[in-house]
């Protein structure tokens, strides 16, 4: 064999050996360059995932800095039927860890196609227990959930959250402020069975949720809720409300309803005829305009007064001649009507509007009502007469307490405040809600006179059950008939009982309104709402350590006055 032949054979072998390598190289070139983009996209879909997450919502605090609502991570547990290895044993184990009846879980398992929801909102400890089981086919999905550390405290104010969005109450009203940021996470996993994360990058929309500090005082709110439940249950009322306000600043310290409604904001949505509590407005207007004076006397027609051929006004108790203060102390509808008629429609209407009736408070809740106030052009004599004692006009509880706070603070109607400030998570104030006066309604002199009369109501009038020995309380009872919304006529035997007052009367710090809708055991404001007011006032006095007035400590009541009005 010649050298040339050997070389040729070697070259041929090399060529044959190189052929597969060249083929592989060409294939690699094709995949890495020509098919590069397509394959990269396919690989990304398999190993990369973009996950959208909603971050935690902002917190809600009360006026003292106590936490009322916060977001926390919880887990939803679910099963993937196709991945369970030993369904019978796995279900048994899971039901014991999650405290679920085994029968119920098995029934749900049988009904489900592949994905079977097991239990929602597991806390961290329970989720860790489930993870520790290391059961194939059991999924735990983490998500932000809202929790309320104080349970039912102020829940009617806070409202509801669903899918990370506020649905009702403050959660809805301030949803844009509270909403957590939305972030996208790109995750790269390895090819193992568990798909361990190798790398992830996160981008978000740059927003940070803010915290809301309410004007609500959690202790006063608790007192209001507790007392309200007691008196609502005792009197078997359909609905009860208690509002507490700082009259100097308009800040709402408590807003309690019973039964609690997490969907409606009843103190701003619900309307009722305020009844005799409205006499304070008539009294204030008459004194301010000079159409009545404290020295005036009024004849109360012995309990029945024919206004015209069709309308007769009645008092709950027949009265003879009363002073102006006596008219309010005894809550005479007849004399209140006479005061109103003397005041005149224009003056009456002016002061009703000045006290904030017929206008929304501006808190911003979507269902807020401005109340019902007939246009002045439609006001007839009978409307003026009955309106003077709080019939024929409808108000929201928040309007009534605002009006009484105006009397309490010397005659200024204040803007209602429910939010104190908005701050970042580290406490830096972004927005502070300062107190603001809307207008002066009555002069200081008139206000002093009205306060004296309202003090008399509690000392010796229909509001005697609201008195707290040693403390000067001023207020007015109210009992109005309920209206059938269908026919527009008054319902027999169904009342709305209320009491609105403030204390200490000379330098008021708290205005309280208690309303009981359709109480069935006792019926009048002086019997039902006034004692509830007294109990809330006592608790606040004790908590705040308010000093009693020595001169009032040994005060005795005069001859008993019927508490009907």
């Amino acid at each position, binding site marked *: 064999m010649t050298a040339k032949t050997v070389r040729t054979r070697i070259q041929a072998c090399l060529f044959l050996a190189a052929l597969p390598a060249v083929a592989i190289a060409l294939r690699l070139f094709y995949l890495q360059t020509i098919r590069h983009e397509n394959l990269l996209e396919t690989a990304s879909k398999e190993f990369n995932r973009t996950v959208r997450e909603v971050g935690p919502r902002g917190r809600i605090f009360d006026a003292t800095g106590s936490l009322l609502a916060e977001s*926390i991570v919880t887990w939803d547990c679910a099963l993937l039927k196709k991945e369970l290895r030993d369904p019978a044993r796995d279900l048994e184990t899971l039901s014991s860890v999650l405290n679920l009846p085994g029968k119920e879980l098995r029934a749900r398992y049988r009904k489900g196609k592949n994905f079977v929801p097991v239990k929602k909102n597991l806390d961290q400890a329970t989720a860790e227990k489930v993870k520790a089981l290391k059961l194939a086919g059991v999924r735990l999905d983490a998500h932000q959930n809202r929790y309320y550390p104080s349970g039912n405290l102020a829940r009617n104010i806070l409202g509801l959250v669903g899918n990370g969005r506020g649905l009702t109450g403050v959660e809805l009203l301030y949803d844009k402020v509270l909403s957590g940021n939305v972030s996208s996470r790109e995750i790269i996993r390895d090819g193992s069975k568990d798909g361990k994360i190798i790398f992830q990058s996160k981008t978000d929309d740059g927003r940070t949720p803010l915290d809301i500090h309410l004007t609500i005082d959690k202790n006063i709110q608790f007192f209001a809720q507790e007392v309200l439940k007691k008196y609502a249950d005792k009197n078997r009322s359909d609905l009860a409300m208690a509002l507490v306000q700082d009259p100097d600043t308009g800040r709402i310290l408590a807003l309690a309803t019973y039964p609690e409604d997490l969907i409606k904001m009843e103190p701003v949505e619900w309307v009722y005829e305020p009844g005799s509590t409205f006499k304070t407005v008539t009294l204030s207007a008459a004194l301010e305009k000079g159409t009545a004076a404290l020295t005036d006397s009024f004849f109360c027609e012995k309990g029945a007064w024919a206004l015209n051929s069709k309308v007769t006004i009645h008092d709950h108790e027949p009265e003879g001649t009363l002073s102006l203060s006596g008219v309010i102390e005894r809550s005479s509808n007849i004399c209140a009507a006479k005061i109103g008629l003397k005041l005149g429609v224009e003056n009456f209407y002016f002061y009703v509007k000045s006290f904030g009736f017929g206008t929304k408070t501006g808190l911003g809740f979507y269902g807020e009502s401005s109340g019902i106030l007939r246009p002045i052009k439609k006001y007839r004599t009978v409307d003026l007469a009955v309106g003077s004692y709080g019939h024929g006009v409808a108000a929201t509880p928040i309007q009534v307490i605002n009006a009484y706070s105006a009397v309490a603070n010397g005659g200024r109607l204040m803007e209602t405040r429910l939010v104190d400030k908005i701050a970042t998570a580290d406490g830096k104030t972004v927005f502070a809600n300062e107190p603001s006066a809307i207008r002066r309604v009555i002069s200081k002199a008139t206000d002093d006179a009205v306060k004296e009369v309202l003090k008399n109501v509690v000392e010796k009038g229909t509001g005697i059950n609201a008195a707290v020995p040693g403390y000067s309380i001023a207020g007015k009872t109210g009992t109005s008939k309920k209206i059938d919304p269908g026919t527009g006529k008054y319902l027999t035997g169904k009342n709305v009982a209320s009491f609105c007052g403030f204390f200490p009367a000379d330098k008021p710090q708290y205005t309280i309104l208690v309303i009981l809708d359709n109480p069935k055991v006792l019926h009048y404001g002086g019997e039902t709402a006034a004692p509830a007011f007294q109990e809330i006032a006592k608790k606040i006095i004790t908590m705040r350590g308010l000093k009693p007035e020595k001169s009032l400590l040994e005060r005795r009541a005069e001859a008993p006055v019927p508490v009907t009005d």
Partner: protein
Amino acid sequence: MTKPRSLKYAALLSAGTIFFIFAWGNVQATRLGYNIEELRKEIANLETGNNYLKKEIQTFMSPERLQAEAVKIGLVYPEPDSIVLLEEKATDKPAKGWLARLF
């Protein structure tokens, strides 16, 4: 002939080293990626655990719970007239005793 062959070996070795360093770097990056993710998970778990502990504290301090615990041990909410308020008296005279002077 030796010199060109040694150059070829050197070039092959250099290329091999470079590829090795590149591959080693990628492996390290993946390993560090796992470590970072484990640490991230641990941080998230600890933060969540911290939030749950804070939640427990807040729950214990709710007025409803405090009242329930107080009632269990026989406490009642006092009436206004059962509280004695001690008034602070402002004084210009300095405290006399050595113990008072300490404070």
